């Protein structure tokens, strides 16, 4: 006679409840390769499933906004390098335009074109890093070497243009530090050819790579509504299907003169964010080529900028007027009219905003920096729970944030 013991579903549920145990709290970071800087995630885990994610930021807080209130507008330019330190040129431009709008300065065409070139090169540089590191986060080491090779060439160009590889401080309020070096545009053109080849190679290595697809496709999708609700900007917003790009929709620095497309995702998952960045590099190259072709001649600083720029050193030593001007600018800073301005620029990571309140004089009364990375990270508690612990590296990499800008 057979004896079978029937097990009811209720028993199984009770037993698995018994086995469940308690949740585990895990601190990921502040120093962890996947957090790309000093970010700490306070995670609550059930097995290896994340049920709660609380990002802890502030490890890189330097008080940039406080510092800005205590120095002149010109002195703050180097600090903007250290916001998104992967695209310092773009930060420089955003800050300069914000102050120029407040001061009511109009830039000559050549200055605007050079700034566009700077912004797009910064975008390529930032995305090359973003893509390379993202591939590394998901287990593909080679791509990183390919993209960093190109990035190195870019840094050589930056060095030639600005004198620094990393902390460029290239723009000045009312212009630039210097004009383009001779033959530089041709070298950028050569770089453009090379970077497209590399991007195609990365495309072949990653886009149909089974392991990469497994790690990214369908992981942490951000819906259009969620992206807007959390105020995401830049590639992260566009990957969710919102075709909004400040370069097209609120053109600044002459972006309306150039032809380019805005890549937009459909699902908003990690894979879409990767694809959007890949295409943005190609579009940036397209813009760069147009800039090179149409680079206007003329002045590279505004005529009115003489009230802001330090006069040429030779004249300071020999002419009274310039000496006084130099003295006033160094001690009191450029005189910016009272008022308030909010300017956002389309940076590689998203919209970098500067809100400046001036009471007149050479020092801002309040300078608020709206960092896109800060906003991108604020969505983590909404998208990370429900994913596995290993997916976190994939999610963080796809958001492409930088802590220098998040913590300011």
């Amino acid at each position: 006679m057979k004896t079978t013991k029937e097990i009811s579903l209720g028993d199984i549920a009770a037993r698995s409840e018994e086995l469940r145990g308690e949740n585990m709290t895990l601190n990921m970071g502040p120093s962890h390769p996947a957090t790309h800087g000093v970010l700490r995630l306070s995670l609550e885990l059930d097995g290896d499933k994340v049920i709660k994610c609380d990002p802890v930021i502030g490890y890189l807080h330097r008080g940039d906004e406080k510092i800005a209130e205590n120095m002149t507008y010109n002195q703050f330019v180097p600090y903007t390098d250290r916001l998104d330190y992967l695209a310092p040129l773009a930060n420089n431009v955003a800050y300069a335009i914000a102050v120029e709008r407040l001061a009511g300065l109009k830039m000559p065409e050549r200055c605007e074109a050079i700034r566009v070139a700077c912004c797009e090169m910064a975008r390529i540089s930032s995305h090359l890093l973003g893509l390379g590191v993202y591939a590394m986060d998901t287990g593909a080491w080679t791509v990183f070497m390919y993209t960093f090779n190109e990035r190195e060439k870019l840094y050589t160009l930056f060095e030639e243009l600005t004198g620094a590889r990393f902390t460029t401080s290239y723009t000045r309020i009312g212009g630039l530090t210097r004009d383009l070096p001779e033959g530089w545009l041709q070298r950028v053109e050569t770089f453009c050819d090379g970077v497209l080849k590399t991007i195609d190679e990365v495309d072949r290595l990653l886009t149909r790579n089974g392991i990469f697809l497994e790690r990214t496709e369908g992981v942490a999708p951000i819906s259009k509504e969620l992206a807007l609700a959390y105020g995401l900007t830049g590639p992260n917003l566009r990957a969710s299907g919102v075709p909004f790009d400040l370069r097209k929709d609120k053109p600044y620095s002459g972006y309306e003169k150039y032809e380019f497309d805005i890549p937009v995702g459909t699902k908003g998952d990690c894979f879409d964010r990767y694809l959007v960045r890949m295409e943005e590099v190609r579009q940036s190259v397209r813009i760069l080529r147009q800039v090179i072709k149409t680079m206007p001649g003329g002045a590279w600083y505004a005529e009115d900028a003489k009230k802001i720029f330090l006069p040429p050193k030779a004249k300071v030593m020999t002419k009274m007027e310039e000496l006084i001007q130099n003295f006033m600018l160094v001690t009191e800073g450029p005189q910016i009219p009272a008022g308030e301005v909010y300017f956002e620029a389309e940076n590689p990571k998203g919209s970098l905003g500067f809100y400046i309140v001036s009471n007149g004089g050479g020092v801002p009364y309040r300078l608020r920096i709206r960092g896109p990375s800060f906003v991108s990270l604020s969505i983590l508690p909404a998208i990370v729970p429900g994913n596995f612990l290993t997916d976190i590296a994939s999610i963080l990499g796809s958001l492409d944030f930088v802590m220098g800008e998040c913590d300011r």
Partner: protein
Amino acid sequence: MDVAALTQKFPRTQSQKSIDMPTFAVANDELAEIVQYLRDSQGFDLLADLCGIDWPDRSPRFGVVIHLLSTTNKEYIRLHAACDNDAVPSVSSIHPGANWHEREAYDMFGIKFTGHPDPRRILMWESYPYHPLRKEFPLAGIEVPLPAADVAAVTGQNVEPAPMMGGPFVSHGGHMSGGEPQALDQSWNEEKPKA
């Protein structure tokens, strides 16, 4: 942006002069309602920025500035709200993205956001006693006890000096050449006998 519609619906709202975008001073208690109305009826679907501002000689002292963006109409709007009793209604139920911005405004200025789901500090640690972006707070910082007692026990110091040494604001005399600001810790310097 239909400016008239906003001032008609909320008569206490005042339009202000501005060089870059429509700017309004809104009544403190109407702030959340207005942000909701702008999102639902005027298409301002993205909260670009929310920040605090300190006016020590004004009453009320603190203000909150909100920048909203319409991704469909491609325009911005700016709202100023004064903080009666240092408090202002939270808008994070309307724009969840405001959550962190409001935490930062609380952290930096001590502005309270009524109805905020998670009113913690964000950049400074929880037991930090000051609000650093207030105008009276000194640039060089104020020494405060370390947050963790066990760290203090190991280091033998109760305070952690603000990391300003070697920064652009602190220079100190002595043997160092050229008046260059330098780090206080000279253990790497050969002039110091090696232990």
